[in-house]
């Protein structure tokens, strides 16, 4: 037989992924040769590497290159999401070092694992083959299982890792079965080919195999973005995981799940929009309501933000139900601003809590406004943005999501969303009440704010405010990003 000729491939679309993987491997090696207790410089190197990758990704804006025989694509949609992932990872790296040092688990492998997670998320966003999307998702998930259980001497962290692993693997089963049925019904795994095959069917909504495949895939992704009723793992995993990892998990993987879901639903299955938007309608309402109502009763602030992150997934789903330009651009905008405000809030939680993850209740924020006014102001901005008050980024994001729904005629959905948003103000305000109106219960040493954490806080505050004041700049990018898919 003749030799296999390895095809000539265009590497441009996966250059950022290659760069990050190589960087992660170099960091793994450096870690071996650096004595324990002196791992901080790994964090700085990874931050610089992430910034360099962001430049590399940004240079690809406006391009449209398919490569690896349709397994991966470089387009504005992927670029926008890659920026969100890099941002989440960069902020996480900045806030990790101090926390990990305090919890005595500053193993250098943390940073390579974060970088590998980003590689997985990037592949999910740029993959145009179900295989690439699935493998990207697995690279992301396997690293996250480890990161959730990273503080291995802490029982809660063990438990978070195990729970995340069992439910994540379970949801992978559903996702894969959905992919298998879709493959059987259409005869291909390429997203763009699926679109053309489904487009040629006389009545795609009568093809039960395709519908079942779509349903199962949506179930799998609903687990990953923590949409109700598949959200059970979220509060426990978010509470138990090391706080910087919780911040990362709530911003990055959620955005990655939305990226893959948007790509599959809007590119591969637009002909079934009536069916999937009805399903997502129910899912969005359920997710918003369950998240907000349970968040009202939480005292532990990490748990409260976990439920609130469920509610935020619900708001973003509203944009997907609409499925039009405004709604989907709203999702991109919202995911970006959510990364800023949520990681910022978690950074403050790290500063307030003490060794062993104690001191993490809402009551422990009492008196923060008098003791550390700057921190309290930053926290107020994050909470305002999370609650969706003008003039913050959260308000503009919600505005576009809901107005997308109204444009498509989903008035009730928008009304439910606004009501939910109003209910959420209660538990965000509660933290502010404690910060400004209660005396601290006991005297204790505040953690010193190190330079990287301060930098992360400044970036987060800027990111939560500026898009709220001048939204058109980022919104333009988001609109260009969704135009091409």
């Amino acid at each position, binding site marked *: 037989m003749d030799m296999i000729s390895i095809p000539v491939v265009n590497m441009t679309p996966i250059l950022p992924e290659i760069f990050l993987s190589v960087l992660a491997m170099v960091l793994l090696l450096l870690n071996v040769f650096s004595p324990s207790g002196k791992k901080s410089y790994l964090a700085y190197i990874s931050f610089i590497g992430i910034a360099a990758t962001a430049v590399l990704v940004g240079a690809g804006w406006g391009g449209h290159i398919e490569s690896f025989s349709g397994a991966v694509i470089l387009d504005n949609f992927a670029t926008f999401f890659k920026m969100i992932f890099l941002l989440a990872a960069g902020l996480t790296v900045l806030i990790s070092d101090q926390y990990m040092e305090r919890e005595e688990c500053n193993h250098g492998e943390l940073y390579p694992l974060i970088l590998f997670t980003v*590689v997985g998320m990037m592949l999910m966003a740029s993959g145009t083959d179900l*295989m690439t999307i699935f*493998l990207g998702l697995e*690279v992301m998930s396997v*690293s996250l299982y480890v990161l959730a259980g990273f503080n291995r001497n802490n029982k809660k962290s063990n438990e978070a890792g195990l729970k995340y692993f069992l439910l994540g693997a379970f949801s992978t089963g559903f996702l894969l079965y959905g992919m298998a049925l879709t493959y059987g019904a259409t005869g291909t795994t390429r997203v763009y080919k699926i679109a053309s095959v489904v487009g040629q069917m006389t009545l795609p909504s009568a093809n039960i195999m395709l519908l079942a495949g779509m349903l199962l895939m949506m179930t799998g992704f609903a687990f990953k973005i923590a949409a109700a009723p598949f959200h059970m793992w979220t509060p426990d995993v978010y509470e138990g995981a090391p706080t910087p990892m919780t911040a990362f998990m709530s911003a990055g993987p959620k955005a990655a799940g939305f990226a893959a879901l948007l790509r599959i639903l809007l590119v591969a299955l637009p002909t079934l929009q009536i069916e999937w938007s009805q399903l997502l309608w129910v899912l969005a309402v359920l997710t918003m309501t369950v998240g907000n109502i349970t968040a009202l009763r939480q005292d532990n602030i990490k748990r409260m933000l976990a439920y609130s992150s469920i509610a935020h997934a619900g708001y973003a789903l509203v944009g997907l139900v609409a499925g039009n330009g405004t709604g989907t651009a709203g999702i991109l905008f919202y995911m970006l601003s959510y990364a800023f405000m949520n990681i910022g809030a978690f950074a403050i939680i790290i500063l307030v809590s003490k060794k062993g993850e104690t001191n993490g209740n809402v009551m422990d924020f009492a008196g923060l406004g008098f003791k550390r006014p700057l921190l309290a102001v930053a926290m107020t901005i994050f909470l305002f943005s999370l609650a969706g008050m003008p003039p913050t980024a959260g308000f503009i994001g919600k505005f576009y999501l809901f107005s997308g729904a109204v444009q498509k005629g989903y008035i009730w959905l928008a009304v439910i969303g606004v009501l939910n948003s109003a209910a959420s103000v209660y538990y965000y305000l509660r933290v502010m009440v404690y910060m400004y109106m209660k005396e601290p219960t006991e005297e204790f040493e505040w953690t010193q704010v190190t330079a990287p954490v301060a930098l992360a806080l400044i970036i987060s505050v800027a990111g939560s405010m500026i898009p709220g004041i001048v939204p058109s700049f980022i919104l333009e990018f988001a609109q260009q990003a969704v135009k091409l898919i």
Partner: protein
Amino acid sequence: METLFFAIVSLVAIISAILVITCKNPINSALSLIMTFFCLATYYVMLDAPFMAAVQVMVYAGAIMVLIVFTIMLLNIRVNATQKHSHRILLGSIIGFFTLINTIVLLVKSQAAKPVGPFTGDMIRNIGHSELIGREMFTTFLLPFEITSILLLVAIVGSVILAKKNI
């Protein structure tokens, strides 16, 4: 003849799968699971995919199950004597029921796509299954193949971090 063989293998596969979820002792579950894996390998041979059958036996029945059995032995888990929760059984049965309904729908009207690819049973037998797989893997599916290398690296680093005694 082939139908009869298929029926026998299916019976064994389903019975051993039921044993996996009903056995009290995890070791028995693991052994039943290995039985199911061998049945699946038989299916793969019947489906003209001998390479998949070999990989199934080597990777699943060999590597993964040995790892699982090893962990069970290492942790020395007690046989679980407590009774199960009824609401869990109910929930499980409901989901199982819906999956079966789905199956019946698939059975009544098969809606799979028409054959599109060039490979027939004769062709696979003539050229060889592993060669065809290899050609596809290293040309069309080059990128996913490379991604798995990263996945395996992550798994190695992760398990060392989580389970090593002193790091």
